[in-house]
């Protein structure tokens, strides 16, 4: 499994919000998108409730 490391992670429980910063490798760059993927997809593993998260590339 390929991993990135979060350089700054914060969870604001009262607001129900997570903010994380990551150092992206060179080849990822601007075209990157972010998804939440459900772990066990079984029969329907393809259409997995995958949806983009607000993206802020800096």
């Amino acid at each position, binding site marked *: *499994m*390929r*991993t*990135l*490391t*979060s*350089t700054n*992670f914060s*969870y604001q*429980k*009262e*607001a*129900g*919000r*997570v*903010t*994380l*910063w*990551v*150092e*992206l*490798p*060179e*080849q*990822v*760059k601007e*075209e*990157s*998108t*972010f*998804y*939440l*993927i*459900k*772990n*066990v*997809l*079984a*029969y*329907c*593993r*393809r*259409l*997995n*409730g*995958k*949806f983009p*998260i*607000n*993206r*802020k*590339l*800096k």
Partner: protein
Amino acid sequence: MKASVEINFEELFSSEPLEGACQLIFTNGSKDYQCKIDPQSFDYYSYNNGLYQCKPYLTTHGTFGLYQRKVELPVVAEKLSFKKGMLSGEMTFKPILPAVQVEIGLKGRNDITEEFALRYPVKVDQRKVGFELPLAFDLNEFEDGMIYDLYVIYNSGELVRTEKVATPKNFKADYARSGKNSFYLIKPYKNNEQLLSLYIKQEKMAVSIVDVIFNKTNGQFSIEGLVDNEAVPVQARAIKIVLKLRDKLGKEQYSFEIAKSLEVSGEIFAGSYPLESLPIHHSYEGGIWDVFIRLQASNHSVADYPVKVVDGYLSKNYHYFVIPESSKKIKPYVTGARGIALYTAANQKKEKLKIALFGSQMITEPFLFTTRTEAVYQVVLQQNLSSMISMTGKPVVWNDKDFKSVNKNDRSMLKQEFEKSFFTDLEQAAPDYLIIDLMNDVVNPLIQFVDSQLLTLSSALVRTSYMFNEESVMDTSDNHMMIMNAMDTFISSLTAVIPAERIILATGRLINDEEKEQIKRNNRVLGMLESYFLSKLPETNVLDLTNTPYRVDAQHQGKSDQEFVQQLNAIVLDKQVTFRSRVEHGNLDQEHQIPGKRH
């Protein structure tokens, strides 16, 4: 280069909770990355008006994930009493926010829809809330032995959640007669799981048959009988004879019924009917039509009762009557339960219809598990490890050594998938009908190679030792252009081999107790593909299974398989007995489907 991601639970999940664990994936379309975070623990954040909770968590690899769950909201009912058809008591609720609307609902246990038969609003302004439910006056759907379960329905405005109602203490109630149909009795009880349910019982009535006369020359079938009203609180008289076609798999279930008039004189009834007038095309070979008598009470309640032949009545050995212009013959007989039924058999051995199958297990399973297909149909070609999109791709090199562990059937389907030989094989097999469904295009990912080579990543292919680059696995569900183009190519290759009126598109939907959001999305895409297919090829026959969804988590698809066979028979065999001849020759007073079933 640094990037930041903000995840707002309320924004993401309030209308679509994703119960269980999920992970954050960074992807550029070809490579996926997960994100490592420092070990720490997190508390839950509640959202959706307190009905759901979510928190970050660390996966076993130390990467970032989210875990969501329903907030536990158990409901306990106590101080129960059931008097004059009114269920009353006190329910204990967990604290909920005022914005959440609460109802008590009743739902039939075998009802596959999400519909509630009854709903009563409840104001939960304190922990314990008294309730009074006039169940016996409000319930309107009955069947002998039917069970309703009691639920509490929470509606947050965005989402609806249900909980069953527990009853810790022993609770015994007497039956109350229904206010809507006096043939039925209702009783709440504590079920095996210590939850509150409702049991429906049909009032016992004796409907006896004293004689059955059958003229095998003209197929005239006559019965005589009586309704014994003595010692029964409901005074009833016979109004109709009802013939119900038994489902072969579920003995207690009926897929079709017709009702005809009776001559009635007091408690005695009689009737005479030409069997030729039966809608025989609905009957499969070996089909059994049970005889019921429809009774009407003085308050106009109606219920169907099975008949019993009187003691000492000798079972006659009836001969078959051959239905003109049909391949079937029929005769009455006395059933093991001493009822009367009509038995349908094939008149003569005939050639089986040749069927080819292309699609998912939804269309192949009925031929495996439903015995009544064997006599009529022969599967001459089967492909359920491919998909429409991949069959329009270029061939992929097949190497026997990668598929040594695969069974013969799967190997031949996989080989056809690799070599893209379906259309050639279809031409050679020359089936009478081709049945297809598009589910594999929705649920299976594709492996895409360079030069437009495609393979469907089926579970059978995953189990082989065939090696492929995981990075070439793609999700095409959002790529509408690609799907439509593939479908155009597929349809033109198909119609070059088989005419559209010999193609049957099985339209289906998926159902699962988990993964509800995925299923919803799959079904949406599936509906879109089916509509597109039909817009391109409107002469195609449609076998509509959308009302009996395919259960992802079940071993067998009882209802869906039965529905499949009934509809297939109707499409294919209807051509032999037309509706016109039935209406002209018959004297059917009423003919209809069983409620909740479709044809």
